[in-house]
Structures are given as structure tokens and as C-alpha cells.
């Protein structure tokens, strides 16, 4: 049996094919949920992220639209999930200020520094981040986990706007190497 590719499923979803949506959901549920959970550190928020992501996909508008020049489908879908998680963190943070004083949740963004201190189970990503130099850890934290804009990163790190992209690429590159080492994968280096 030929399994449809992600792109084929996506094209069917655009034609309102519910079965394709369900197949894509099954394919990515665990990965996306785990990722959202890592980003939000909260099961209710992760569930809302899942709803946001699949609703975007189904509605096929704006940032829910995939095109091949946007890169690999799975990378794109993870980016959508990451952005939905960041949005959710922002909203929850604001809401809690408005609602009631629940200080147990989301005191901070699930930033890297905080997570490393916590005794919660470490994952490979965490260890790989931990071995980066401080400046690169911070870059990953601001760009990746907190979704800062280029200008915000430039301000926070006090570096010229024009160098932000380069720093992010470098930090991510380094992170990728660390992850490969974590896994003991030889990338031929």
C-alpha cells in the first residue's frame, strides 16, 4: 500500500478532505503534541496549540498555507506549531494577569534558563542547548522559545540589527551539531 506523502495529504486537505486531515493528524499527533508540551510546559495549553495548528491547516488561510517554496512540509508544520505555542504562552500570560492570581503557572516563559534549573526530566534538546556558550543559549532562547522579533533580539542582546540573523544561524548550526553528538550520529565530520 502506498502511503500518501505529506504534500499529497495537504493538497487533499485543501479540498476539504476530512479523511486526509485525520490521516495527517495521526501521523503528527505525537510529535506535535510533545513539541507543544515542551514549548508551553502545560497540557491544557498544548491541547489548545494542537487545536490552533489543525484549525489553521483546515482553514488554509494566512500562516496556515503551505507552499513548496516554504521548505519541507514537516519543518513548516513544526514552525506553525512553534508559533502557535509562542502565541499561546503570550495569551496565557496576559490572561492570568487579568483573571486571577494563579502564580503557579507560567511565571516565566518556558525559557531555557528556567528549564535547566528545574529538576524535570531533561531531554536531548535541553542537554544540547546546555552545552552551548551562554550567548548562543540566549539566542536560542529568545528566537526559538520566546519568538522575539529581530529588533527585540537586537535590543535584548545589545547587538546590531544586521548581525541578528547571522547569530541565530550560527547558534542553530551549533545546536544541530550538539544534537547529532547527543544522538551519537556521525554526520561525516
Amino acid at each position, binding site marked *: 500500500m502506498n502511503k500518501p506523502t505529506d504534500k499529497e495529504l495537504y493538497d487533499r486537505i485543501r479540498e476539504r478532505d*476530512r*479523511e486526509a*486531515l*485525520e490521516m495527517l*493528524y*495521526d501521523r503528527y*499527533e*505525537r*510529535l506535535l*503534541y*510533545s513539541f507543544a*508540551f*515542551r514549548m508551553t510546559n502545560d*497540557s*491544557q495549553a498544548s*491541547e*489548545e496549540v*494542537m*487545536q490552533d495548528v*489543525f*484549525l489553521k491547516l483546515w*482553514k488554509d488561510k*494566512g*500562516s496556515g498555507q503551505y*507552499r513548496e*517554496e*516554504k*521548505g*519541507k512540509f*514537516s*519543518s513548516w508544520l*513544526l*514552525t506553525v506549531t*512553534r*508559533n502557535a505555542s*509562542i502565541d499561546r504562552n503570550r495569551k496565557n500570560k496576559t*490572561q492570568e494577569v487579568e*483573571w486571577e492570581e494563579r502564580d503557579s503557572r507560567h511565571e516565566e516563559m518556558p525559557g531555557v534558563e528556567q528549564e535547566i534549573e528545574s529538576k524535570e*526530566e531533561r*531531554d*536531548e*534538546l535541553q542537554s*544540547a542547548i546546555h552545552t552551548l556558550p551562554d550567548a548562543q543559549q540566549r539566542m536560542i532562547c529568545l*528566537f*526559538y522559545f520566546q*519568538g522575539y*522579533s*529581530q529588533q527585540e*533580539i537586537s535590543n535584548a542582546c545589545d547587538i546590531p*540589527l544586521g548581525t*541578528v*540573523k547571522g547569530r*541565530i*544561524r550560527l547558534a*542553530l*548550526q551549533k*545546536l*544541530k551539531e550538539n*544534537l547529532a553528538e547527543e*544522538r551519537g550520529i556521525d554526520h561525516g565530520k
Partner: protein
Amino acid sequence: MENKTCHHLIDYINDRLTEEEKQAFEQHLQECETCREELQEIEDAAGDTAFHVKQVDPPDGLKGRVLGHVLEEDQQEEPARVTAKKTWSGTKTAGVALAAGLLLSLGMNIYTTSQLQNLSSENQELEQELSDTRTALSDLQDEESGTSPGTQDSIQTATFLPSDEGQSGGTAALVEQNESAELLVQAQNLEALTNEEVYQVWLFEDGTPVPAGSFTTNEAGAGGVLYKLENRQGDWDAVAVSKEPQPGNEQPQGEVVMQAEWS
């Protein structure tokens, strides 16, 4: 050659551009190979990290709730977010999505009897959630009655009690929209059927039974049906399930195994 638009890459990835800037950047992506490569590189690296996250088990029923939510929003075509409603607890929200999820899944014809059996094992939780659903939806209707009079949905739920000392149980949900209605029934711990026997669902209007779908059970005695009542809205006062010697009866012939009143 980097131009001004190239500097939008980071903000594009983090979705921090205005809609106009985003469209301009996407246009630019088609022309600028460097940006395409860098986008791919960053997204790959970012995506790659996601595979190294500790895998956690999604909670039970997540799929039904997520896909249910998608369908629900889709039908409403309305930006108002159920999840953003401040007075609701998470459970109520989940209840709405769960009910919609069940309808969605059955509508997709994807759920098999054995999956229904799994569903029925969550029956108690379901009952609670259905009851929450009712509250939540009635809240929602109150909220919306002033703004969108055209989309009058109503949902009623019922919990079956066995008619004698049997152990059967189940739940029913009736969703009425415009001129039509959908009835979802799921039950478990029913006696095994023989020959052509089926479990027949009846809706009662002023004490008169109207057939509303039939189902058979799996080895574990669980089963369910999603039944559409086209162009038929009634003042239903109860719902019952009887064991009929054959499908297609217009009047109950066999014994009623469970019944419930709408609440």
C-alpha cells in the same frame, strides 16, 4: 545580494510581520534563492530540534477534541473562540469539543465498532462531559442569541438507565440545526444479538415512537449509531433503545432495553 526585504527573514519565521510585509516577503522568496536557502536552513534546524524533544503521550481523546474543535469552528465560521471564554473551565470546553468530535468521527465513518467500544469504556467521563457540554452550549446560545439569530443550534443530551436489572448503559446526544437534526447514541454492556436482531433507537414525540437508526454490537456488547433526521425537527421528550427481531421496524416489537429523557 541582500536587499532590504532579506532582513525580514527572522521576523517572517517568527510570524512577526504585518500581513502586507508577509505577502511581500513571500513574493520575495520566490525570487531570492539566498532567502529560500536560509529559510530552509533555519527551519530545518528548528524542526530538527523538535525531534529531540522528550516524547510525551498525548492525553486520551485528544484527537476527537482537536478535530472536533476544527469542525465546530468551521461550521460556525466565526472568530469567537470557545477556548477564550473566560467563565468556562477547561472541562466544559473539552466537553463541547468532545461531543463535536464524536459526531465528526462518526460522520467520517472512520470509527469502527471496536473503537466505539473504547469510547464506551470512557462512558462515565463522557456523561459528565456531555452534561458540561449542555451547560456550555446553553451558555454559548445565551451569548450568541443577540448576535446571530440565523444559526440556532441546540444540543440535548441523555444518559441511559437500564430498564431492568441489566447492566447496560450509554449516552445520547441530539444536535438540532436549522431544519435537521443528528442523533448520536452509544451504548455498552448490551446482551449479544442473534440472527437478524438489532438494537433499534427510538425518539418519542408525545409518547409516539419514531425510529431513529439501529446498530449491532461487538463482542464486548458495545455499539452506537449516528442518525440523521432530515428535515425533521420535533419536540422530542425521550429516547429509547429496544432489541428488535429484525431491522427496519416502524413500531417497537421487541423489549425496550434502556431509555432516557432529554435534559
